[in-house]
């Protein structure tokens, strides 16, 4: 497939203030992005997401490693590469507060060398699509945070670049506005064929929007997989059964042998059995055990795993590995 962005062995460290120590913000990160793909860059605070994004946008020079955009090496031909990129960086303050919504769009277009005439139609389109049309003459400092964020995204869309990077697009927004921005991003994904990289520590954003996710932690890539596969991977067959009575000692013994991880909460009227199945066929073993005493099964629920749990597991697993290695 056509790789529009290739990040190869990227490293960046910052010098700590008033000390000789360095923070390895990005420590050997590699990944690629296919044309037209929506990639989630996921990781806890301080993982190195913003640092990675800024290097791709040419705002930070990497200590080592290479980044190519459309085959252009950003270190060698920075301005050439920037032709294909636009971004909304963290926070929503990257707008001119003394200018109106429309003037901001026009000014940023001008700074990319486009005239007001060139972008007139595009701006109209964006204002309508982003539901900012009735605010076009409003000064930016009078807008709500959500609207400012939408405008910032509109500014990034204006350039019609192949790649758009969004750093924490829903950070600091209330639940409702966060939802609105997510819906808007969905529309963008649907209506404009762009390659989009979204960084976030908000799982909803990634689960909602992304096809693939690169999870980073402490400056390193932890996993790089389709969101779908990750969900499958952790699609632990976790079941919760409500039983209309108690299990016999024999049943309990058998369960312990077959499913050492299970949890049993006895109750004369409604016992609860939580169980993880390694393979789907194991459900028959479970029923064999229950059948011994014809224990009534009132309900069976399959637990739903969300991305957040997966993410926490991966990140925790990663730290556990590290601890195991260092000890």
């Amino acid at each position, binding site marked *: 497939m056509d790789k529009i962005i290739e990040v190869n062995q990227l490293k960046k460290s910052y010098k700590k203030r008033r000390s000789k120590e360095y923070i390895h913000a990005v420590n050997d990160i590699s990944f690629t992005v296919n044309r037209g793909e929506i990639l989630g860059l996921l990781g806890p605070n301080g993982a190195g997401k913003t640092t990675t994004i800024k290097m791709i946008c040419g705002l930070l020079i990497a200590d080592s490693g290479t980044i190519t955009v459309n085959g252009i090496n950003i270190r060698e031909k920075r301005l050439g590469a920037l032709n294909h990129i636009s971004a909304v960086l963290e926070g929503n*303050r990257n707008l001119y507060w003394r200018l109106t919504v429309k003037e901001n769009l026009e000014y940023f277009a001008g700074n990319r060398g486009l005239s007001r005439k060139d972008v007139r139609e595009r701006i109209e389109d964006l204002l309508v699509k982003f539901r900012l049309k009735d605010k076009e003459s409003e000064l930016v400092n009078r807008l709500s945070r959500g609207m400012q964020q939408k405008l910032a995204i509109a500014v990034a869309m204006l350039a019609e670049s192949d790649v758009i990077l969004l750093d924490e697009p829903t950070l600091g927004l209330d639940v409702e506005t966060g939802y609105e921005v997510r819906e808007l991003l969905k529309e963008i994904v649907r209506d404009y064929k762009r390659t989009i990289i979204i960084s976030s520590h908000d799982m909803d954003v990634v689960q909602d929007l992304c096809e693939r996710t690169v999870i980073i932690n402490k400056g390193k890539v932890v996993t790089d997989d389709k969101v779908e596969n990750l969900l499958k991977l952790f699609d632990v067959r976790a079941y919760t059964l409500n039983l209309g009575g108690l299990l016999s000692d024999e049943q309990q013994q058998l369960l312990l042998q077959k499913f050492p991880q299970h949890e049993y909460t006895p109750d004369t009227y409604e016992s609860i059995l939580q169980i993880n199945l390694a393979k789907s066929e194991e459900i028959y073993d479970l029923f064999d055990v229950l059948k011994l005493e014809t224990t009534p099964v009132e309900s069976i629920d399959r637990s739903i795993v969300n991305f957040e749990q997966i993410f926490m597991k991966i990140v925790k697993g990663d730290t556990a590995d590290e601890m195991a290695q260092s000890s």
Partner: protein
Amino acid sequence: MKWLNLLKANTRKEYLELKRYLPNTIAMLFTFYIVFLGLFGTIQFIGDPSTQDVNTQYVIVNYIFWFLTITVINSIGYEVINEGMRGTLEQLSMSPMGISRIMAARLISTTFINLIIVIVLLYISMLTSGQWLNIDVITIAPILVLTLISMFGVGFIIAGISIILKQVQAFLQILQFILMGLTFVPLSLSPVIAYLPFVKGIDLVREVMIDGLTWSQFTMGDFMLLGFNAIFYFALGLGVFVYCERVAMSKGLLAHY
């Protein structure tokens, strides 16, 4: 074409901001006028009556240039600091036009708009004092252009330093007085001063406006010095700026919020 769009966009932004903050703009012009009246009054009442007229003329020209250099050089410094905090500096740095071109466009457009203001102030000052200077546009324009180029160089240096040094605000306060020195110092003090940025240019403008000199009365040396000064400081400024930009991109200083 792209260049022109860049220039237009920045001129428009400058204009819109001045218009939107009209009370600020008016206050700034008012301050200019009050200070001018103060200087003028001082010369009238305590100056030597025999040199009064010439002194007033000097003050008008110097003061006008001082105002122009402050509004261009000092404000680019403050702008860069503010935009660094706002995050817009990063946004600008992602433009495929490059940040140094955008800064150049800023310098040119700010100068253009402030030049219009300065011309109005010049006429108000002449009207107030009754001292009519020799406004020989044909002679002044080329000198002014070269002088401004040298000024842009200094603007670039200030913009660059403002990106990488956070404590630059205190320096910008002092800079006003450095600029005052550069615009008020007479070349007759020492020939070496002519090598400082835009001093030679302002000196030539003074000679035109006060002593009524024309092109033909300047020497080849004057032109050479003026041209050299413009090229040297512009190149130096651009070099310093590009260097500072690279430092900022290595250390992550384009945004300090």
